[in-house]
């Protein structure tokens, strides 16, 4: 799971071009949006697309569900490992 978290941190940094951050700067349990990394709803869209490309996971149309998955890097890793096709 830790390897997947590391991969997802790299994906977040690359997708969103967070150039001044290194994977080790991101706390896997910290919130990704608003108060944490300060990402916004458009970042969520971009990240959703990137996850779909990388792992073949599709996001649900249920926004409450999605908010849970996008809560932190750890939550994303849980979601990916449960749904990945590759």
């Amino acid at each position, binding site marked *: 799971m830790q390897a997947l978290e590391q991969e997802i941190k790299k994906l977040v940094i690359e997708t969103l071009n967070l150039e001044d951050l290194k994977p080790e*700067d991101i706390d896997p349990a910290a919130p990704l949006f608003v108060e944490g990394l300060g990402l*916004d709803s*458009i970042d969520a869209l971009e990240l959703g697309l990137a996850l779909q490309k990388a792992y073949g996971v599709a996001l649900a149309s249920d926004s409450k569900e999605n908010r849970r998955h996008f809560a932190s890097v750890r939550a994303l890793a849980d979601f990916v490992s449960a749904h990945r096709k590759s």
Partner: protein
Amino acid sequence: MAERIAIEHLLTQGRPADFPVAFREGQVLTFADFEARASGWRAAFEGHTGQRFALYFEDTFEFAAALLGAWHAGRCVYLPAEVQPTTRERLRLQVDGFAGQIPSSTKLLKFQQGAPRTQWAPLSSEAQALVVYTSGSSGEPAAIPKQLGQLTREVATLADLFDARLGSDTGAGRVLATVSHQHIYGLLFRVLWPLTSGRPFLARSLPYPEDIVAELTHGPAALIASPAHLKRLPDTLDWASVRGNLRSVFSSGGPLPGDALHACRELLGQAPVEVYGSSETGGIAWRQRARDEALSWRTMPGVEVRLTDDALAVRSAHLPDGGWLQTEDRARLLPEGFELLGRMDRLLKLEEKRVSLSAMERALLESDLVREARVVPLSEGNRLTLGVVAVLGPTGRYLHADSGKHFLNQAIRKHLASQFEPSVLPRRFRYLEAMPVNAQGKSTEAALVALFDSRRPPLRVLEQTADRAVLSIETPASLPYFKGHFPEKAILPGVAQIEWALQLGRELFTLPPEFLRMEAVKFQQLIVPGTQLTLELTWTQAKGSLQFKFTSEAGTHGSGRILLGEVRG
């Protein structure tokens, strides 16, 4: 005083054969020389198909001859401010040929030696004579077409207003300039006005204050300058012994800061004549702040001004038609002219949200995190975001050194969050020692956006003089140069080192346009991702040599010389 001759009639009416038109390295270039060069250039343009030609010359006399040659051949002249690769690419799509010192150019015109003597006919004021470009400080440079009459009417106004200031002795008051004729201000003030009023001009520009002092020892002259130069006058030079010869100083291209005004009064013994205008509008107003710092602008004869939504609008014979042209400068009208109150807000839509870049810049300056700041739009993938280029203030410096760049970025975002929605907050940051400025003293948007190019390594300038600079450069693994070079072990290609040396050399020094060759290039040790490099650049103008050396704790990695020069047109 020499007879005033409008540019339309300069070559048909003519001046005495020995009339001094310009000076080059102590030599007088006469009207006969001028006519001969213009004739050869006219033949060159007539011998080449197409209507539109880009001119770029270092030498102002040769430029003036080529300009008149092109006009008498019925051609339209495109005037780029510089000929960097991106500008050349853009021009290639717009013009049919090039003349002058344009590097690696196809379709380059050759001056026609021994062309038969030309029968001149007057030029038409309605001719589509010129295309100039805006400086691009608020976006891509925009092309502005001008009819010949727009230019000559403006020159007539300048002559009416300022001729007397240059003295009445024929041929004595030479025109010196720090600014290039490749811009509308330089074109009008150092080429077209002197040609019209019969003032000899210096064929080369004077980029260094030492050159201005040396030229002033040769006799009376006027100086066409810009704030970029006037705010950098060294008080160590002997201005007192030469300023008696300085008849007038002109400043345009941007606002003249108070410090520069004081330096001019003290060192040059006079306040410059400030001219307010733009590439689109031409000259609008002028003032000379001999005593009153806040003296208002006086509208030029024939120019009308009014306010539209607090911004100045202009109507004049220097504009293409009788309509009003809206500027982006806020102003207050006064009985004798107007007062300028700063630029209008730059508005942008980010993901359907409207944001004022000017308001964000003002908000940044309210904190003591930054001392200077510019906000620029960056397109990343399919998203438009904002980037901040800033010179740090005391608190910002402290946070950067103590807690790192990411922490400082977040502090800046937090500061802005009280006034701006989270989704428009800047996402990328560049902290510099000084804002990048071009020869006109402006930070163009292109130069600011270039700081975010992923091929540009993170760097800091440690030391800089006129001919030497030391930089610290990081080589993060994310640099695109490492991708696939090589798949099994990433190393920085030698060509990337040369590209960095040349690119940074061009930013730090004024280098000639053409890459001639390289000498003594050696790559002694590999540069792997994460290497902390020091780059030392030395510019030897006399040899046209840019020397570079990349070192680190491990010793020297790469070194060599890049030879640069002019192409003779």
